[in-house]
């Protein structure tokens, strides 16, 4: 009896392993590249331009076709190098005089990988500015906010710099911080023209910014709009106007500007959990934000003051709609995938539509029943019935697992 119960447990474990391995073999054998579609926005025609809908041609949203050379003339800022090589870079764009230097100074890009799950260290350096040295310097210590409050850990002596820590603690206590920090954010480093210090969310979900200037702490509490709690702070150290992008638990995205304003971006379909990439680009005229997930991209165009100008979403081909993907829906009741994104790892189990796979499951359950009868097993025995039910529920995974672990008469 015990051995048979253990067998069921092992069958269930093997079902789980099978749901990782068998679909992986299937996809390696049959999954092929699908056609991806990408979007851009023309500063000249004020139309979205679509790559990938037609072989060797670009289309705009009105259905006009363009060659690559025409496309490059339509997006002079992102094709500047190519236009300069051909001597076609314009003197004016949309009536505004432009130079390559001006375009380069106003162009930026920041890609936020929303699925990144890298290691988190809970401590990071805070650079010191306003000293007698040019720019910013490291102080050989790392900042952390633990149960004791804010601390500066000196790496050379392996001890906490109590004097400096007390200085910052006093300043932050005056602002009402409540340690420990849930998470630290920021890229405080030397070699940049501007340092925004570090950000942390305390145990009461308040956001604080900490900087170190001329031997004194410069701290401020940032009041969050709409009563949100933050899921992530993505710092933007190289942008002249933006300090950070704030991702709220209401799926809202906010821009924290250098003049301490918080602007909400009008991203109507953004969902932090389902989208994979948040891609921010900018040029002399616009800020452009592209949000992407498998089979879908939406591009938002904002003016320089983050007012929405235009938006356009487009669906690409997805594996699930391809022949192999459709067949997969009939073969497997669910698929478990192990992801290994940038230094991260996670397991995700996704089910298939019940109406698809149930037919194969029932056929396999019938086959198992026939095999058991042929072997002379008592098909009314409770453990044989459980086997058949497992195959009916888990389909091909259950069938393989049940056969791996033989049952005694």
């Amino acid at each position, binding site marked *: 009896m015990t051995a048979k119960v253990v067998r069921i447990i092992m069958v269930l474990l093997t079902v789980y392993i099978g749901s*990782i391995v068998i679909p992986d073999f299937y996809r390696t054998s049959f999954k092929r590249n699908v056609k991806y579609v990408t979007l851009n926005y023309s500063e000249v025609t004020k139309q979205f331009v679509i790559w990938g809908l037609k072989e060797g041609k670009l289309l705009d949203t009105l259905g006009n076709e363009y060659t690559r050379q025409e496309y490059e003339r339509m997006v002079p800022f992102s094709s500047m190098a190519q236009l300069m090589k051909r001597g076609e870079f314009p003197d004016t764009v949309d009536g505004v005089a432009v130079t390559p230097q001006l375009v380069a100074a106003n162009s930026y890009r920041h890609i936020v990988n929303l699925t990144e799950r*890298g290691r988190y260290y809970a401590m990071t350096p805070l650079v010191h500015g306003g000293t007698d040295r040019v720019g910013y310097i490291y102080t050989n210590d790392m900042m952390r906010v633990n149960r004791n409050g804010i601390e500066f850990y000196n790496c050379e002596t392996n001890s906490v710099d109590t004097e400096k820590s007390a200085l910052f603690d006093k300043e932050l206590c005056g602002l009402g911080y409540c340690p420990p920090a849930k998470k630290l954010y920021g890229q405080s480093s030397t070699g940049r023209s501007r340092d925004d210090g570090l950000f942390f969310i305390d145990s009461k979900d308040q956001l604080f910014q900490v900087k170190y200037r001329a031997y004194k702490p410069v701290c401020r509490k940032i009041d969050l709009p709409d009563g949100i709690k933050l899921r992530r702070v993505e710092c933007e150290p190289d942008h002249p106007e933006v300090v950070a992008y704030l991702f709220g638990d209401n799926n809202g995205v906010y821009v924290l500007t250098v003049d301490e304003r918080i602007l909400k971006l009008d991203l109507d379909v953004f969902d932090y959990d389902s989208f994979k990439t948040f891609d921010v680009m900018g040029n002399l005229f616009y800020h452009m934000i592209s949000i992407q997930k498998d089979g879908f991209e939406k591009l938002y165009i904002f003016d320089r003051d983050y007012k929405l100008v235009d938006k356009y979403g487009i669906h690409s081909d997805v594996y699930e709609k391809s022949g192999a993907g459709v067949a997969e829906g009939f073969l497997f009741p669910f698929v478990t995938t192990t992801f290994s994104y940038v230094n991260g790892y996670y397991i995700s189990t996704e089910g298939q539509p019940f109406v698809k796979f149930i037919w194969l499951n029932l056929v396999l359950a019938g086959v198992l029943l026939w095999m058991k009868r042929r072997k002379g097993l008592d098909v009314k025995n409770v453990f044989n019935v459980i086997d058949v039910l497992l195959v009916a529920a888990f389909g091909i995974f259950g069938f393989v697992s049940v056969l791996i672990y033989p049952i005694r008469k």
Partner: protein
Amino acid sequence: MILHLFYKEWLKTRWFLFFVVLLGLAIVTYIFLDVDNNVRMKGSFNYLMNVFYGIPQANYYHSLIKYVPLLMGVCVGLSQYVPEVIDKRIKLTLHLPMHNTVTLYMMLCFGFLMLLASYAVVFGTFFYLNNLYFPFEESWAVLTSLMPWLLGGVAVYFMIAMISMEPNLFYQFLYGIVAFFLVKQFYIGMEHADTRHIIPALAIMAFVPCTALLYTSYRFIKGER
């Protein structure tokens, strides 16, 4: 009786344990010689910056230890079960005046404790030295990366115990395939990953096979071929 059983298991496993622990300690020593050299050359702060944000060689300074838990699980499992099953001495063990389930679980328990003891020696040394060179936060982050590897060693030990007791070679092969794909999940590119969210799932995957010995030993006792 149980202590005698433990002594019998100790006689089988002690040299394998000794050498695998020695190997683990040698790897830990090598890792921290390298860390010490880097700290002297670059300074503590700069080296810590390299570990946090730098090149992969610095990020992954502990990656050499990745397969040590796996090796420990394999060594303890093979030394404990394979000679006894091949020489059919397991039949004598199963005729001891104890319930078979208790006997087998005492064996499994001994092997698991030995595995934990060897983990404690090697990884205890690793974290002791790690705390000498790095702050607690770094050690904690490294521990979250190491946990899947430690659990992988446990899983492989339980799977070896299960496979060894299986009397049929063909089913041993099939269980071997299951064990391979099970253990593989613990070692997928995670040198530098935050694994806290998947540790519960991996722990379940590691400890569920501890029951499997009952299934194959039952087949062994019943004389399946």
